[in-house]
C-alpha cells in the first residue's frame, strides 16, 4: 500500500536513544519499517527536525461536558472561525473548538494522539460519537469511576472480588482506555443537601461507610491487578485549594509503591492556608516524585488568557463561579458523576494566576525525570492545547521565560523559585515530555517513537531558534503513514483510531449489577453498554502483566 521515505532529517527519538542524529525514516502501511524502495515518495527533511507525533495524555475534547462547554460559549467561537477547505470540514475554534477543528488543530501542532480525560460511563456513547467526528488524531478516553455509587457500595461492604469484576465490566461497557478518579468521594456531599465536598482522605463520605482513601487505594489496585496499560489516572481531592499539596502527597503515598498517574499536578501543588493565598510547593511535590518511580504525572500548566474550567469536581466550579460571577454549568450524571463548567481567564496581574503559571513551570524544571512529568495544560482548564508551542518555548528558553515572568504579578513570582532555575530543556527532553513520555505512561508502545514497528505518526518541523514559532505549525504531519499536512497544506481528511481496553471479567457480575440498574438507573441495563459499532477503526489494547512490568522497569 502506501510507502514513504523521510530523508536527511534531524531525528529526535528518545525511546531509541536517537538524539538529533541525521537519520532516514521509512514507512510502509502505516508503520515504520527497515527500508522501502529508493523510488518511493520522499520528503527531504534537510534542515528540519523529525519527531514522533505528539501524544496528549490529558485533555478534554469530546463528550457531554465538552459539548456543553462548546455550545455554552458562542461569543468565544465567533472570533476564531475554521474555514472549510475542500472536503475538510469547517468549524469554530476558541477555547473549546468544534470536533473537526479539534482534530485539525491538534494535527497542525504535530499531535497525533490525544486522550479525553473524564467521561462518565453514561456519556461514553456520546464521547465515541464525537470521536467519530474528530479527524486525524488517535484517541481514547478515561472513564470516571471514583464516585460510582454501585462501586462504592461494593467497596463499603468489602466485596473486593465483585468490585474488580464490576470495574472490568464497566471498562468493557464504556469502551474506555483507563480508569479516572476525579475528586474521589466528592460527588455525594455535592449532590447532597449542603453542596459540600470532602477535603480529607480519611473523612467519611456522607451516606457511605467509606473514605476517599479507600476508593483511591481500590482503584489503584484494580488498575494494576487488571494489568491495564495505563494506571489509575487521579485528579486528587482539594484541587485548587491552598495547602492541597499535603493531600497530593497523601494520595501518592496511598499507592504504596504501585503504579499511579497523578494528573494536572500543578493544580495540586499549593501551600498556604485554606482560604488564603496559595504558595508554591512545587519543589516538595517534584522531590517526592523524583524519588518514587511508581509515580507519573502531567503538569496541567496554566497559560495566560482564556480558558474554560470543565471538571468532574463540580463543587470547585461553584466556588469559582461565586468568585467570578460568571455563567456556570452544573451537570450531574445519575449514580456516576458530577460536572461543573465555567469560562475563565488567567491574568498575569492576578497573584493566584501568576503563581499557578510559575508553579507549573517549576514542576517541569525541578523534575529530574522528564519521562514521568509530562506536558499538558489540562486543555482547556489551564488554557487551550494551542498554547503548547508557547509552553515549549518557556521550557526551552530561559531568557524568554524570565522575561515573561517579569511581566506578571511579582509577589507571586517571588513566592516561587522560578527565577532561580537556570534549566533549559533540550529538544530531546521536549520529545520526551510531549511524545515518548506520555506514550510510555499510557502503555502505547507503538506511539511516541520512530523505531521499526512503531506507528508511522511523524511530525517534521522547520528548525527555528524561536521554539514557539517552530512548534506552532508542523511542516509535515504523517499520521498512520498518510501525509495529512504536506508542506503546510492540508491533505485529505482521515479518521483516527480509537484505543480502548477490554479486560476479562466474570459475566456473573452482571447479575449483581442488573438489580441496581433496575432500581436506580433510568436506562435499561441491556441498553447501557456501548456496542462495537461506535468504535470504527479501533485497537483493543490487551491488558497483560508483561507489558506493565516492562514499562515499570523502563521507568526505574
Amino acid at each position, binding site marked *: 500500500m502506501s510507502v514513504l521515505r523521510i530523508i536527511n532529517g534531524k531525528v529526535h527519538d528518545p525511546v531509541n536513544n536517537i538524539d538529533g542524529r541525521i537519520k532516514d525514516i521509512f514507512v510502509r502501511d502505516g508503520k515504520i519499517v527497515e527500508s522501502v524502495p529508493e523510488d518511493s515518495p520522499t520528503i527531504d527533511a534537510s534542515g528540519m527536525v523529525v519527531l514522533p507525533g505528539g501524544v496528549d495524555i490529558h485533555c478534554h475534547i469530546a463528550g457531554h461536558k465538552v*459539548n456543553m462547554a*462548546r*455550545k*455554552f460559549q*458562542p*461569543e468565544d*467561537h*465567533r*472570533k476564531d*472561525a*475554521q*474555514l*472549510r*477547505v*475542500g*472536503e*475538510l*470540514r*469547517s*468549524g*469554530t*475554534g476558541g477555547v473549546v*473548538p*468544534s*470536533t*473537526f*477543528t479539534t482534530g485539525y*488543530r491538534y494535527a*497542525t501542532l504535530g499531535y497525533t494522539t490525544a486522550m479525553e480525560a473524564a467521561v462518565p460511563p453514561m456519556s461514553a*456513547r*456520546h464521547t465515541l*460519537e*464525537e470521536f467519530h*467526528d474528530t479527524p486525524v488524531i488517535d484517541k481514547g478516553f478515561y472513564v470516571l469511576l471514583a464516585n460510582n455509587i454501585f462501586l462504592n457500595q461494593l467497596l463499603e461492604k468489602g466485596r473486593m472480588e465483585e468490585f474488580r469484576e464490576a470495574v472490568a465490566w464497566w471498562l468493557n461497557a464504556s469502551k474506555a482506555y483507563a480508569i479516572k478518579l476525579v475528586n474521589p468521594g466528592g460527588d455525594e456531599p*455535592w*449532590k*447532597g*443537601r*449542603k453542596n459540600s465536598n470532602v477535603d480529607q482522605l480519611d473523612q467519611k463520605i456522607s*451516606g457511605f461507610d467509606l473514605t476517599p482513601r479507600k476508593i483511591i487505594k481500590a482503584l489503584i489496585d484494580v488498575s494494576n491487578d487488571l494489568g491495564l496499560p495505563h494506571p489509575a489516572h487521579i485528579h486528587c481531592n482539594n484541587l485548587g485549594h491552598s495547602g492541597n499539596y499535603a493531600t497530593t502527597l497523601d494520595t501518592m503515598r496511598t499507592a504504596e509503591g504501585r503504579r499511579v498517574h497523578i494528573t494536572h499536578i500543578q493544580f495540586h501543588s499549593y501551600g498556604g492556608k485554606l482560604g488564603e493565598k496559595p504558595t508554591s510547593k512545587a519543589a516538595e511535590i517534584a522531590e517526592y516524585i523524583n524519588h518514587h518511580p511508581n509515580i507519573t504525572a502531567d503538569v496541567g500548566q496554566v497559560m495566560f488568557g482564556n480558558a474554560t474550567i470543565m471538571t468532574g469536581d463540580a463543587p470547585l466550579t461553584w466556588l469559582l463561579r461565586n468568585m467570578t460571577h460568571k*455563567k*456556570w*454549568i*452544573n*451537570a*450531574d*450524571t*445519575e449514580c456516576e458523576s458530577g460536572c461543573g463548567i465555567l469560562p475563565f481567564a488567567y491574568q498575569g496581574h492576578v497573584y493566584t494566576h501568576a503563581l499557578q503559571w510559575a508553579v507549573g513551570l517549576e514542576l517541569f524544571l525541578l523534575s529530574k525525570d522528564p519521562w514521568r512529568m509530562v506536558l499538558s495544560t489540562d486543555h482547556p482548564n489551564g488554557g487551550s492545547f494551542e498554547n503548547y508551542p508557547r509552553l515549549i518555548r518557556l521550557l526551552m528558553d530561559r531568557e524568554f521565560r524570565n522575561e515573561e515572568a517579569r511581566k506578571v504579578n511579582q509577589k507571586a513570582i517571588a513566592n516561587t523559585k522560578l527565577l532561580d532555575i537556570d534549566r533549559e530543556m533540550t529538544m530531546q527532553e521536549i520529545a520526551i515530555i510531549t511524545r515518548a513520555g506520555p506514550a510510555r505512561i499510557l502503555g502505547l508502545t507503538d506511539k511516541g517513537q520512530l523505531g521499526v514497528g512503531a506507528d508511522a505518526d511523524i511530525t517534521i518541523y522547520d528548525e527555528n531558534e524561536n521554539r514557539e514559532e517552530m512548534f506552532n505549525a508542523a511542516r509535515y504531519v504523517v499520521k498512520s503513514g498518510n501525509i495529512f499536512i504536506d508542506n*503546510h*497544506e*492540508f491533505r*485529505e481528511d482521515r479518521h483516527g483510531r480509537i484505543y480502548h481496553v477490554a479486560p476479562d471479567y466474570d459475566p456473573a457480575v452482571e447479575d449483581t449489577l442488573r438489580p441496581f440498574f433496575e432500581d*436506580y*438507573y*433510568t*436506562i*435499561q441495563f*441491556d*441498553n447501557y453498554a456501548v*456496542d462495537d459499532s461506535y468504535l470504527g477503526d479501533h485497537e483493543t489494547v490487551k491488558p497483560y502483566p508483561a507489558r506493565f512490568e516492562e514499562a515499570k522497569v523502563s521507568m526505574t
Partner: protein
Amino acid sequence: MSNNTSVVKNAVCTFCGCVCDDMELTVDLDEKRITKAKNACVLGRAWFYEHKIENYPVALIDGKEASLEEAVDEAARILVNAKFPAIYGLSDTTCEAQKEAVAIADYINGNIDTTTSVCHGPTGMAFQGVGESTASLGEIKNRADFVMYWGGNPAEAHPRHFQRYAVSPKGLHIPNGKEDRTIVMVDVRTTQSASVADIFLKVKPGRDFELLWALRALVKGAALDSSVEETTGIPLDTMKDLVERMKSCQFGVIFFGMGLTMTRGRHFNAGALLALATDLNDYTHFVALPTRGHGNVTGADNVVSWQTGYPFGISFNRGYPRFNPGEFTTADVLARGEIDALCVIASDPGSNFSKKAIEHLRAIPVITLDPKPTVTSQLARVAFTTATYGINVRGTVYRMDNVPLTTRPAFESPFPSDQDVLSAIKERVCELRGLKHASNRMTRQTAKVAV
C-alpha cells in the same frame, strides 16, 4: 395477524423526549407492523402502531414518481445552485442522519437549523447567557424531594415522565416515591397534570417572568415590590412559602416547557428559571431541565453543536459556521423571504410556520425527507420517503437529559434511512461542487473575524 412474529425487548420509543427504553414490542414480520407495545404510553402506542409500511413511492420529483438516484441528483442540484439554501428539521431522526445534514449544509454553504429554534431555542440562548444547573433524569428519580413543573403539561405531552423519572418512582434517597416528594405545578391554567401537584400556582398569563424574578428576589433576600402579587396573581405569602420549601429541600428540580419558552419574554423567561435554580445552590442542590418534545431534538442540539460549535440557527454562507438566532433561524429566513431553497428532514414547517413563512415556502424549491406525506412534502419539488427512525432504523438518539441511547428497530423498511439519502446527497453535492481532493492551500485556515 400472521404467526410470523418477533418480540423486541428494551426497545426505545422515540416519540417524545422521554425516550423510554423499556418497550417490549411484538412485531408482525409479514405485515411489517407492531401489534403490541408493552410499557408504551398512549402517545407511544399511537407512534408504534401508526408506523407501518405504506405503499408510497420512494421519491417524487414535482409530484411524479422518480428513482432514488434521480431524486438525489435533483436534490443535490437544487442545493448546489441555491445562493441561500437552508436545511431544517432533524429532531425526529438519528444522530447519524443529523451528522450528514450538517455536512451538507457545510458543503453547500447554507444554513442549518433544527426544530429547537421553534421549541426550546430560547432555552438554548438562555443557557448561553446564564448557564444551567442540570442533571440526568436518574438523579431526579434518586434524589429529588422537591419537583416543580413550570409551563408544561407532562401528563399529556410526556405521559411517562411522572412515573418513570420524577414523581412516583422510588429512588436511592427517595424510598417511598411520591410520598417523599413535594410536587409543585406552575401554569396559566389547570391542566391534567395539575392533579398530581401538592401545590398548584396559577400564574397570570404572560407573567411568568415577573413571578420568577420575584422568587429569585426572595431566594436572594433582595428588595421586592409588593405590586408583584397583583401582576402575577400569586400572593406574596405563597411565594415565600414556596421559596422556603425550595431552600430547605434536599435536592430540587424544576422542569419547564414551552409554556415558558414560547410566551412573551421567551429566552429571558427560560433564563430567569435557570438562574433561579442556580441561585438556589447557595442553600441546597438544585437543578432545572427543559422537557424536550421530539424524540431526538436533544441529539440534534448535540450533533450540530459538536460539529459547528453552535446548537441551531447557523449559517455557513461564508465558509464557516456563524450563529445568530433570529437572523439564521428557519422560521425567520422564510418569513423575511430570504432563502432560495429549503431541505426539510422529518419536520413539517408547512403546517405550523407563520403564514408569511409558508408563502415563501411555496415560492422556492423544497426537498423533504419523511416517512409519511406531510403538508410540506406536498409542496416539495423533491420528496423522499424514508424509513422511520427507531422503528425501522438503528441509530443514536438523545433523551431530553442528554443521555444517548441506541435504538432497537422492530422491522425492516423497504425505504432508505434519512442517513442513506442524506449521505447520497452529500456525495453528489461534493461531486457537483468539485470538492473531492480539491487543492487545500494553506494550513491553519482560520479567520479571526467577528462579522
